[in-house]
């Protein structure tokens, strides 16, 4: 601690260089934090998935619907407590840029199977009683200023036509990771219209979701469900909700991996920026280090001086970067549609990652200067002309 004053004075010996290095570090750490936040958000669906939920879809592709009649059969499978279903509606609200998930659901069971979507009893009753009622997530309501009683008009694409819904409920998320950007309306409302306009497409659902007994083995229950429909025209594939979500995310794994690599390349760049500064500083101080060694300062002292300087610079730059990350994430979260990243915020694990990155950078940047300071003979160092 006695040499802390010297460390601090050394840091600000070249104010412009140190300031630029700190700014460089801050920008890089902010970029690192932003990318890590985006990756986490991408995976938030997987993180939010429940262990006691299974998803049953067509064995070939989720695009193929399943017969509604599967519902009753699945209910009979041992271990299954409740079953609900969903149907991707698609469509557009205003234009293509206003994207959010629009689902036709079973209003009587969806909130039982998804208890993390919190809705008042009155709003749920209203939703269940009116055919053209809809429920929206609180984040979506905030984004578009939807209020109870508002009419939302969608233009159908998979199900052509002009569709009008009345907002009868706004659900709130139970957990931070819960998606609050969904739009639910009654499947019956969709089915009735489809049966009128496209009779062959009636009585079909996109996928079914089972809430199972917590003591039940998800693997056995999944096999039991799929066995029911083996060799039928619409064979099923049942898996845990996590696996189901993972299958969506894994289709984008190349992008996610690319983003991850990019974030670690950024750490490498920070290392080079700080390393360059530290190497220049250590080279300029070759003679001073020789003097300190001559005066009796040991290797431990020199390591402390150089490592301390590197760590303090990286801590200042990293701290500033982490601080800026919160602002950048908030700013970005406000500017991108919530539906793309329902949960877009700095997670503790990303903060820990950023702190670790800053520490690693601080230590790694000091390695070469320390080596140089320790291996230069005092006599050679005293003769050094920088």
């Amino acid at each position: 601690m006695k040499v802390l004053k010297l460390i601090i004075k050394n840091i600000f010996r070249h104010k412009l260089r140190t300031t630029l290095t700190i700014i460089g570090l801050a920008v890089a750490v902010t970029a690192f934090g932003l990318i890590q936040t985006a990756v986490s958000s991408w995976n938030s669906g997987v993180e939010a998935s429940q262990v006691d939920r299974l998803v049953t879809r067509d064995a070939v592709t989720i695009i193929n619907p399943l017969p509604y009649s599967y519902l009753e059969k699945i209910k009979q499978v041992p271990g299954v407590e409740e079953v609900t279903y969903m149907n991707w509606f698609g469509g557009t609200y205003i234009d293509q840029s206003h994207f959010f998930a629009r689902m036709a659901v079973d209003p009587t069971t969806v909130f039982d199977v998804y208890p993390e979507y919190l809705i008042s009893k009155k709003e749920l009753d209203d939703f269940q009683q009116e055919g053209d009622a809809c429920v929206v997530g609180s984040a979506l309501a905030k984004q578009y200023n939807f209020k109870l009683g508002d009419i939302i008009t969608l233009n159908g694409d998979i199900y052509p036509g002009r569709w009008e819904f009345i907002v009868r409920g706004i659900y709130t998320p139970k957990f931070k990771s819960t998606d609050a950007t969904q739009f639910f309306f009654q499947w019956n409302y969709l089915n009735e219209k489809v049966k009128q306009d496209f009779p062959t497409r009636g009585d079909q659902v996109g996928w079914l979701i089972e809430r199972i007994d917590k003591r039940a083995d998800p693997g056995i229950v999944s096999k039991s469900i799929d066995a029911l429909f083996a060799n039928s025209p619409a064979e099923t594939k049942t898996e845990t909700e996590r696996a189901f979500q993972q299958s969506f995310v894994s289709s984008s794994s190349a992008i996610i991996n690319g983003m991850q690599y990019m974030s670690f390349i950024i750490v490498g760049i920070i290392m080079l920026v700080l390393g360059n500064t530290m190497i220049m500083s250590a080279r300029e101080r070759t003679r001073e280090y020789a003097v300190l060694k001559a005066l009796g300062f040991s290797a431990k002292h020199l390591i402390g001086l150089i490592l301390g300087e590197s760590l303090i610079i990286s801590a200042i730059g990293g701290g500033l970067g982490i601080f800026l990350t919160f602002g950048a994430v908030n700013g970005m979260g406000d500017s991108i549609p919530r539906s793309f990243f329902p949960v877009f915020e700095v997670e503790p694990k990303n903060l820990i990652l950023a702190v670790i990155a800053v520490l690693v950078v601080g230590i790694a940047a000091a390695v070469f200067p320390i080596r140089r300071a320790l291996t230069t003979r005092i006599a050679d160092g005293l003769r050094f002309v920088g």
Partner: protein
Amino acid sequence: MENLIEIKDVSKSYRRDSIEVPVLNNIDLDVPDGEFLALMGPSGSGKTTLLNLIAGIDKPSSGNITIHGTDISKLSESALAKWRSSNIGFIFQFYNLIPVLTAYENVELPLLLTNLSRAERKQHVESALGIVGLADRMDFYPKQLSGGQEQRVAIARAIVTDPVLLIADEPTGDLDKNSAEEVMTLMQRLNSEFKKTIVMVTHDPHTAGRAKSLRHLEKGDLVKE
């Protein structure tokens, strides 16, 4: 008078590429306690190398160097560093003060390696700066001082730990005549008044003349008196 420095059959050579270059050849030298010895010689004669060996910042290829009863040629690097901090005071040609530290802080540097309290360090630093006549410049940075003043701060740094031996490598080499006189007067005072043993390398006969004794080196050999 008892010898403070005993150099027995010391040789030093350096390896440049694959060639062994001898710098000092079988040097024997005794320096009594309280001596003020000047080492002279042409460039490349090995005088700075001998000074470095005495100061413990380099090690002999063979032979023994005993300072104040300690055979420093047998000490490890870390032990040697510790030994230097309490036994040697350095005065360099180019002062070698740390530019971001004030005169006070530069003089305090060697004391940071001791267990002295802040108050005790302050007392020592003020005393050392007082001896060199710079008590009123302790808050000045090196760039705010003249060359002579910088060298006097360096001398204060060298004596602040009260070492048994002062090592001076061309202490007036970068100074004008007046400043050089002041520095040499100060060094003489340190030797006579404070009984400091001094070994000084110089190529200036006038400076060497201020020492009590003089030895010459020629091509790595100590010239017989």
